C-alpha cells in the first residue's frame, strides 16, 4: 500500500509538472489528407471529477458530472492551507481509459467507434489527506451509457452553414491539388496545403466543442475510499463506498442541465457504516471555454454529508494548459448547527494535450 501511494503520487506529480503544460494543437501531418487515427480528433471538452477523486471530498457537491472520455486526466485540489494561503495541493487524482491510453498511437477512428463502450470505460485513483491529516486513498470506475447522441439535432445533419463553408475550403484545397495530376495517379499535397487542411480541421473541432459541450449523456460510476492512519498509507480501513448515476442534457447552445444521484454507505464517527444517499441538480450557463453554474442538493439519511447544499462557480478553459474550476456556496452543518460557507478550487488537465 505504501508503495502504491508513493507510485501514485510520483506519477501524478511527474505528469503534472512535466507533461501537463507541454501542450499544443494536435497536428495531423500525413502524406495525403487527414489522419485516420482517433488520437488526432479529440475535442477539448471540460474535464469532470473522476469518481475516485470525488470520494476524497474535494468538494461537498455529490453530483458526478459526465463527459466524453479522454485517455488520461489529472486533477489536483486542496490548494489552501492555514489562513487560506495557497499551499502544495493535498489531493491528487488520475483517471485513465486503458484502451485509449495503451493503443492510442495506432487506434483507428473506426475501431474506436466499433468498441466505444469499452474505450469509454475509465478507471480512477486518488490520494490525499483529510482535515485530520489522515491519509486517503480511493479507486473507482466509470461507464458511459449515452454520449453526445443528440448531435443530429444540432445541425450535424448537413444543415449547418458554418461547418459546410469550412468543408468547402478544404474541398477547394483538395481540388487544387488534384488538378495538378490526372487520376488514377494520386495527388500530392504541399506542406502549405497540409497545414491549411489541419487548421481547417482544428476549426471544425473547435466549432464542435462550442456546440456540443452540452450534449446529452448518461454515465454511472462506482468508487471506494479507505482511510489510513498516516500519509504513508499504513493500516488502510474502508471508509466509504458509493455509486453515481448522472443524466445531462443541453439547453440549446447556452446551457446544460444535470441531474444526478449518489447512493452509498459511509463510516460514521462512531465507526459504524450508515447510508449516505444524495440527489443533486446543476445548471451550467455559457460556452465550452467559459461557463458558470449553480447547483443544489439534498442528502437523505446521511450522517456524513451536509443535509443540503447550494453552490455556484465558474469553469474556465486555459488554452493549451487545462481547466480551472472554482466554486463557493453554503451548506448545512453535517451534525446540526449553523450553515457554513464552502468553497473549492481545482486544476485539471488531460495528458497528452488539453
Amino acid at each position, binding site marked *: 500500500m505504501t508503495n502504491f501511494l508513493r507510485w501514485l503520487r510520483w506519477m501524478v506529480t511527474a505528469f503534472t509538472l512535466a507533461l501537463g503544460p507541454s501542450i499544443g494543437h494536435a497536428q495531423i501531418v500525413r502524406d495525403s*489528407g*487527414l489522419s485516420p487515427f*482517433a488520437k488526432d*480528433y479529440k*475535442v477539448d471538452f471540460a474535464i469532470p471529477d473522476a469518481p475516485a477523486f470525488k470520494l476524497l471530498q474535494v468538494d461537498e457537491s455529490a453530483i458526478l458530472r459526465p463527459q*466524453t472520455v479522454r485517455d488520461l486526466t489529472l486533477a489536483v485540489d486542496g490548494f489552501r492551507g492555514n489562513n487560506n494561503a495557497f499551499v502544495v495541493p493535498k489531493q491528487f487524482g488520475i483517471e485513465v481509459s486503458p484502451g485509449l491510453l495503451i493503443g492510442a498511437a495506432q487506434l*483507428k*477512428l*473506426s475501431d*474506436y*467507434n466499433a468498441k466505444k463502450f469499452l474505450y469509454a470505460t475509465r478507471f480512477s485513483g486518488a490520494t490525499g489527506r483529510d482535515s485530520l491529516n489522515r491519509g486517503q486513498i480511493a479507486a473507482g470506475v466509470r461507464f458511459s451509457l449515452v*454520449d*453526445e*447522441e443528440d*448531435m*443530429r439535432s444540432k*445541425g*450535424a*445533419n*448537413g*444543415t*449547418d*452553414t458554418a*461547418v*459546410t463553408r*469550412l*468543408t*468547402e475550403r*478544404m*474541398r477547394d484545397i*483538395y*481540388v487544387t491539388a*488534384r*488538378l495538378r*495530376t*490526372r*487520376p*488514377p495517379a494520386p495527388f500530392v499535397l504541399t506542406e502549405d496545403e497540409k497545414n491549411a*487542411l489541419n487548421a*481547417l*480541421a*482544428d476549426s*471544425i*473541432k473547435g466549432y*464542435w466543442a462550442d456546440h*456540443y459541450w452540452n*450534449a446529452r449523456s448518461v454515465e454511472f460510476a462506482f468508487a471506494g475510499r479507505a482511510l489510513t492512519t498516516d500519509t504513508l498509507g499504513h493500516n488502510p480501513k474502508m471508509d466509504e463506498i458509493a455509486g453515481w448515476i448522472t443524466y445531462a442534457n443541453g439547453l440549446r447552445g447556452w446551457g446544460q442541465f444535470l441531474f444526478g444521484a449518489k447512493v452509498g454507505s459511509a463510516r460514521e464517527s462512531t465507526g459504524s457504516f450508515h447510508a449516505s444517499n444524495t440527489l443533486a441538480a446543476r445548471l451550467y450557463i455559457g460556452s465550452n471555454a467559459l461557463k458558470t453554474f449553480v447547483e443544489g442538493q439534498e442528502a437523505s439519511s446521511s450522517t456524513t454529508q451536509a443535509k443540503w447544499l447550494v453552490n455556484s462557480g465558474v469553469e474556465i478553459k486555459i488554452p493549451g494548459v487545462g481547466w480551472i474550476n472554482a466554486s463557493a456556496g453554503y451548506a448545512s452543518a453535517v451534525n446540526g448547527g449553523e450553515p457554513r460557507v464552502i468553497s473549492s478550487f481545482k486544476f485539471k488537465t488531460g495528458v497528452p494535450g488539453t
Partner: protein
Amino acid sequence: MAVARFEPAGGPIEVAVSCDPNRNGSYTIILWEANANEVVKKYPGNFLNTADDEYSLDTPNAKHKGRLLEAMVVVAIPPGVGPSDVSMTVSQDGAELARDERSVAPGSPGALVDLFVELESQ
C-alpha cells in the same frame, strides 16, 4: 474502378453524389477528358440542400466515351453519431449504371472521400 456502360443513343447521363445519413459537407465532381490531363467540366456543390446534388452531363453522350468522373467529397461527421456512406452514382434513363462508395467514421472533422467512375459506351 467502377465502369458505367452508357447507351449513346439513350437519355442524358446522370451523376449524383450523396451522403447517407446526411452530414455537413461539400464536393466537386470533376469530369476528366479521356487519356488527357484536361478537365472537361466541374460540378461543385454541398449537402445543405440534398435535392440539387444530381447533374446531367452535356449531350451528345457519345463524346463521354473514355472519360472519367471523379467526386472529391469532404464531410464533417461529429463524434457520437454513426458513420455515413458517401457515394457517387452514375445512371441513365432511371437505371443505375455504376456506383463508387466509401464509409466515413464519426469524429472526422473534414474527411476526404475520393470516388471514381469510368464512362464507357455500350
